[in-house]
């Protein structure tokens, strides 16, 4: 075990695995419970993309701010939002992260630096320019990270933010999670130009494209980017090429996908499997150690669901509170 070829300690590798597995279990459980009709509203699952959120968030602290997307559960978990509070929120309960007022698409925890999942695609990018500006003005060394999908990357807000971040030399990081689909529309059709790196260049910032199913590729690339931002080197863009195991939203029959595509990505592009095999094959972590984490994660999510179901609903009076600080 002394020969660890990875850029993380064994303890950190286990932490990364636990994080990815927690996100996966959370999402797969929602998939089942949503189909059963237990969950109100829309949910957009992050399963398949875990290495991106985890690889990035392991470089961040609570002072660093992130702005997420409609597919935000993975970002929330990796940024340290409590999974039980998240589950309760998704069930619309008073004990939820937002006391039942936000739901899946608006989970936030500002004390953890999580500025919200967001129902409006591309809307997080300007907010992160502001978070990065605040970090710059207050001089606390924090960075802002904006997540956007390949779909959201075509929004004006995103493109304007790239320009603004460059002009103001902000400690802002723009992560494009390219899972191949904007809802049902292929990235091949909807994104003009072949390369996000070229887009970054066009806005005067460094850009890099990595295999988002490879935790280590994400981890190492983002490490450099975060370091540069903290040191005043300005914004960057990173594209993480990843896969989406589920539909755009739950209930999406995914008829737009090619034959065998889902089976293929589940078999060959599962970031957790890839991570586990590599780390096990290097002899750093044993299957037994991974299995132990799997078991703990399943128990945690089961507990979260049981507690969420048993939790009280918001009282009627809650309808009218929290609109203003004072009015």
């Amino acid at each position, binding site marked *: 075990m002394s020969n660890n070829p990875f850029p993380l300690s064994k303890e950190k590798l286990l932490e990364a695995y636990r994080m990815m597995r927690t996100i996966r279990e959370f999402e797969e459980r929602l998939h089942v419970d949503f189909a059963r009709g237990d969950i109100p509203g829309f949910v957009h699952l992050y399963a398949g993309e875990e290495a991106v959120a985890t690889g990035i968030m392991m470089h961040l602290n609570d002072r660093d*701010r992130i*702005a997420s997307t409609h597919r935000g559960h993975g970002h929330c978990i990796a940024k340290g939002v409590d999974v039980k509070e998240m589950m309760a929120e998704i069930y619309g309960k008073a004990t*939820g*992260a*937002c*006391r*039942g*007022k*936000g739901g899946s698409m*608006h989970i*936030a*925890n*500002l*004390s953890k630096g999580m*500025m*919200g999942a*967001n*129902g*409006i695609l591309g*809307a997080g*990018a*300007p*907010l*992160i*320019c*502001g*978070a990065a*500006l*605040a*970090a710059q*003005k*207050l001089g606390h060394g924090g960075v*802002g990270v904006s997540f956007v999908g390949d779909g959201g990357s075509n929004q*004006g*807000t995103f493109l*304007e*933010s790239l*320009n*603004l971040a460059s*002009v*103001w030399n902000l400690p802002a990081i723009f992560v494009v999670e390219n899972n191949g689909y904007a809802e049902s529309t292929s990235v091949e059709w909807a994104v003009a130009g072949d390369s996000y790196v070229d887009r970054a260049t066009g806005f005067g910032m460094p850009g890099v494209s990595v295999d988002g199913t490879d935790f280590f590729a994400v981890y190492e690339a983002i490490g450099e980017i975060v370091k540069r931002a903290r040191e005043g080197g300005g914004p960057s863009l990173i594209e993480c090429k990843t896969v989406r195991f589920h539909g755009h939203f739950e209930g999406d029959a995914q008829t737009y996908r090619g034959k065998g595509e889902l089976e293929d990505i589940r078999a060959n592009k599962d970031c957790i499997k890839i991570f586990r095999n590599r780390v096990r094959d290097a002899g750093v972590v044993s299957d037994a150690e991974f299995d132990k984490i799997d078991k703990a994660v399943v128990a945690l999510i089961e507990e979260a669901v049981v507690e969420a179901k048993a939790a009280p609903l918001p009282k009627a009076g809650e309808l009218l*509170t*929290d*609109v*203003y*600080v*004072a*009015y």
Partner: protein
Amino acid sequence: MARKLSMKDAINEAVDQEMTRDPTVIMMGEDIVGGAGASGEEDAWGGVLGVTKGLYAKHRNQMIDTPLSESAYVGAAIGAAACGLRPIAELMFVDFIGVCLDQVYNQAAKFRYMFGGKAETPLVIRAMCGAGFRAAAQHSQMLTPIFTHIPGLKVVCPSNAYDTKGLLIQSIRDNDPVIFLEHKNLYGHMSDVPEESYTIPFGEANVVREGKHATIVTYGQTVHRSVDAAAALTKDGVECEVIDLRTLSPIDWGTVIESVEKTGRLICVDEANPRCSIATDVSAHVAQEAFKALKGPIMMVTAPHTPVPFSPALEDIYIPTADAIASAVRKSMVR
């Protein structure tokens, strides 16, 4: 010590004093300093009409020019507000809200509610509003009803320099997002303004003129036209009470209802377009809450349901005139 100050200078002074008091107060906007990256003089513009002139010299780190990119910088102001700063975003003309409204109404206005009361967004969006400047359809709108409609926003539209300073300082210190609308036709309007810092609370209307026969409820530029109408009506023995709402959200229903209960007549004057406007809002509220006090029909005097025209001949009849207001008061007196 009070001295005469224009509304434009009152804005400058309010921002100056708040930036001195609190270094987390910043302002961002297009050309609010001016000449960024150009080889000419520093602080070249101070805003398109010179409202922020001189602030950069005193507060270099707090005055931030932006590219022409409202979505990005208004959103950045909102993000910064959620991260410990107290930003003022200058939108220049409120008509430009169309390209960045999502950031205002889906983000800033909803953070606190969506996040279960755990967010504060102390943001001010300053923008010029209103007609009479020959600025045509895309630089002359009021749009006050659009903002007032949205829960989570506060909306301010002062009519004079004194209120402007007090309300702007209140807006900057307020912990909710505030839309601060400055009628461009009033920028040169002078009134007594104390040199020292002061605030005017939101939700407190100003009774500009007392009267017992009819209540005129308005805000912004039409406050002055309503006062003119009231002065003209005294010749007919009609004494109008004129209420300047000052803030549209929150709104001072108490003062409005109390006045209508005294006069029995209501005339709502609004420079915004007529449908779903401040005028319709006030009319509906009074009809519901003080129906028994009414002695005549509620009257509304508003801009027509048209864009703002360019030609002075048309624009002058677009904005509610003192004559139109006086005529509406007379109609309200007919039983």
